[in-house]
């Protein structure tokens, strides 16, 4: 109910604000006028980069933990680290990203620094959700696969992975949501430049950061609400589209 109330409140506030101009133009006068196109592009690029970097590591680690080292001491160490990392406030990741990627590696305030930092931030969540999904695959599936003369690798790729797919994708959606909504870690690593990014080394302002800036500095509340609403719509769209894709994939089996 509360959630619906929040969404309805924001949507009512902004419906007059969102139009084609809002979506297709660059902001002018620090965000008081114009649209928010660069921040949409920035959000998508940073998130995409983070997910593309983190997903292989996350899923790989999850399979390693669940299938190869079940119960070992190494598993416990990795699991404990992942849990601890998941509990760290995002600003700490931001600070780490700022020190390591932005200054140490000299990547500057950029899409690349932001994406890498967010990749670190979502990695623990990805690992744990994927691992949970893998562990819920019935042991009997593995037994059957082995009994049919499959190798361990074939069992993992052909039987365990497809069965765990839904859970893994859920973790992925969760991570995408966190990336899109992140502010603290992004301001410190991707910056808050308002222009259109030219390459991965450009600094960008994501929608969440834009919203935060507009609202906290009192630049333009209508534009701030417009950005917030678009943010919600974007997350909603990503959820719906991935769900449709996963359902279509799973439909073959169910």
């Amino acid at each position, binding site marked *: 109910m509360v959630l619906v109330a929040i969404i309805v409140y924001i949507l009512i506030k902004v419906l007059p604000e969102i139009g084609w101009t809002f979506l297709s133009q660059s902001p002018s006068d620090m965000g008081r006028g114009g649209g928010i196109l660069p921040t949409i592009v920035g959000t998508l690029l940073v998130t995409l980069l983070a997910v593309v970097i983190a997903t292989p590591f996350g899923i790989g680690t999850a399979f390693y933990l669940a299938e190869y080292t079940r119960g070992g001491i190494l598993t416990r160490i990795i699991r404990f680290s992942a849990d601890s990392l998941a509990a760290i406030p995002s600003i700490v990741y931001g600070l780490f990203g700022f020190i390591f990627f932005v200054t140490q590696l000299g990547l500057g305030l950029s899409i690349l620094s932001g994406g890498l930092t967010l990749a670190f931030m979502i990695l623990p969540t990805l690992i744990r959700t994927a691992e949970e999904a893998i562990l819920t695959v019935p042991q009997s599936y593995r*037994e059957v696969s082995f009994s049919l003369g*499959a190798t361990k690798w074939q069992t993992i790729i*052909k039987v365990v992975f497809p069965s765990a797919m839904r859970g893994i994708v859920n973790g992925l959606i969760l991570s995408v949501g966190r990336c899109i909504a992140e502010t603290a870690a992004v301001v410190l690593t991707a910056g808050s430049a308002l222009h259109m990014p030219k390459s991965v080394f450009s600094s960008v302002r994501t929608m969440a950061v834009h919203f935060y800036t507009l609202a906290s500095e009192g630049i333009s509340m209508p534009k701030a609400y417009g950005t917030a609403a678009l943010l919600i719509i974007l997350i909603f769209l990503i959820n719906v589209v991935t769900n449709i894709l996963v359902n279509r994939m799973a439909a073959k089996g169910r």
Partner: protein
Amino acid sequence: MRDNLKIPRRKVKLKTDAADLYYGSHHALGGITFDIYERSITAIIGPSGCGKSTLLRLYNRMNDLIPGVRVEGEVYLDGVPLYDRAADVVSLRQKVGMVFQKPNVFPMSIFDNIVIGPRHQGIRKKRDLEEIARKSLEAVSLWDEVKDELKKSGLSLSPGAQQRLCIARALAVAPEVILMDESCSALDPESTMKIEELMLELAKKYTILIVTHNMEQAVRVSDMSAFMMIDERKIGRLVEYAPTSEMFSNPKDKRTEDYITGRFG
């Protein structure tokens, strides 16, 4: 009961020689020695927890999946040792297929369920896979029922049909031996009857080894019976091994007699 007298003259398919199995410190099977004959049905019977399934899983090395398992002694398939250091587990499991207690259909289409084994072996051509699927389904008399809906999920079938699908899936790998671990216990009497008919049919080509709690089933389908029990140290032992007709009409061991006349277990 089938003509059991000819069985001992058949070729030995699986030779179990003084096999011992340990789960960590637990001694689960002790000194198992007996021969299983080609193209026959051998039933392993005995009370719960006596190691029937463990013995069955000795033949496709399925026990290996459990951490801490150790096997002593040797098992030979056509004279080739299974527990040799150089033995290849994957190719062993292609020769020795298994059907489990519950119908373990994968959440995939009927077609994908059947050809998963051949695909692992590297068969990619659609024509070949279709041929394998058709033959395997015909062997379990499921082809006419599902030939138009191979793309449908395997889970949409009835439990009895699912179990036959599982048998077809095992046959698709072209095994020589089929292990069946209480494969009818989750099914209704009619489906059970169908599977039993199927077993008798398959025994013309394959060596079949079943674990069953159902004594009538052992009598109905098997040529040879192996009765197991745990001894006073909780080690699973083979008590008696004989042609089924002989064991059920004239058991040699007192414990076998007590079990099959229903005095315990």
